[in-house]
């Protein structure tokens, strides 16, 4: 790091247990953020400002007017433009010294699996269960750490998985993929609404977990499902253990490659 960088990141470097070493780890890291909506609006600015060396942002959607109430990474001028590219533009203004790649198309399961293999960590900021399961399966297969967040109405959920540990549960251990489960219309922000700062709370928490996982700084909350209510401003956490009968990470996994899942929204 040169003097300018040491100055730029000095408030991290000053932290006990962080230091130049952790900062250099961030600079050498590549993170994939899937989805560039509300949660990503909380995640991405912190990953960029904190100096994560390479960010890959994937989203096939375009920004619309109803997104702007909470997806603060986008601007009025971004309406109609691809979300990944709009996010990239905002982040480039925050930190021009990092490399940001916008993936503007929907990846199929194979593309997702390929991409997950090349990164140090994945942050799930998607808005549907099909993609959540595809990301989880790809991360389990490649042992890539995963920080999963979700938000609707006033309720947020957060889970961080370190698949390098053989005891780690996975997303499907907690919420197994069930082909019978209807993709309930009421789960969508467009139907139920979402309290704007909720995505910031969950997104910033995902960023914290991602930075901690990449650097080893602080204590990481793995193997826990953390539930946040923006209505009461309270957190609750539940212990999760690996399900040996899990179809994704269990002792006899059935569907690791998930070839039937072709795209995410």
């Amino acid at each position, binding site marked *: 790091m040169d003097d300018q960088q040491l100055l730029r990141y000095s408030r991290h470097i000053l932290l006990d247990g962080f230091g130049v070493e952790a900062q250099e780890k961030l600079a050498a890291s590549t993170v994939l953020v899937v*989805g560039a*909506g*509300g*949660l*990503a609006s909380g995640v991405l600015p912190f990953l960029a400002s904190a100096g994560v060396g390479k960010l890959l942002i994937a989203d096939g959607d375009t920004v619309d007017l109803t997104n702007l109430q909470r997806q603060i990474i986008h601007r009025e001028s971004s309406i109609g433009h691809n979300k990944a590219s709009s996010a990239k533009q905002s982040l480039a203004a925050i930190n021009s010294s990092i490399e940001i790649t916008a993936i503007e198309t929907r990846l199929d399961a194979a593309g997702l699996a390929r991409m997950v293999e090349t990164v140090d960590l994945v942050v*799930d*900021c*998607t*808005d*549907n*269960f099909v993609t*959540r399961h595809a990301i989880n399966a790809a991360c389990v297969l490649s042992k890539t750490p995963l920080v999963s*967040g*979700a*938000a*609707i109405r006033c*309720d*947020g*959920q957060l889970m961080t998985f370190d698949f390098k540990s053989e005891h780690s549960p996975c997303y499907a*251990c*907690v*919420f*197994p993929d*069930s082909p*019978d*489960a*209807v993709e309930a219309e009421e*789960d*969508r*922000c467009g139907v*139920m609404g*979402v309290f704007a700062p909720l*995505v910031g709370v969950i997104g910033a928490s995902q960023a914290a977990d991602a930075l901690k996982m990449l650097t080893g700084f602080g204590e990481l909350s793995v193997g826990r*499902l953390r*539930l946040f209510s923006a209505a009461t401003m309270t957190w609750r956490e*539940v*212990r*999760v*253990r*690996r*399900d*040996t*009968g*899990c179809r994704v990470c*269990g002792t006899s996994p059935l569907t690791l490659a998930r070839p039937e899942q072709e795209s995410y929204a």
Partner: protein
Amino acid sequence: MLNIKVNGHQTALPLGATVDQLVTQLALEGKRYAIERNGKIVPKSAVGGTPIEDGDQFEVVIAVGGG
């Protein structure tokens, strides 16, 4: 009878009941849910074989998918 709490509400189940009976009673099948017993998630593969004990506290956590 077994006196238990589900989402903070007192309820009763017959002696010998297992967690899958509670899942049926709560009409959770086909939903994206996790069931928490005394602060820990009951793995789905263990739901059928997990006996309920008097005084157990359950919380049903429905998966949130929005982003």
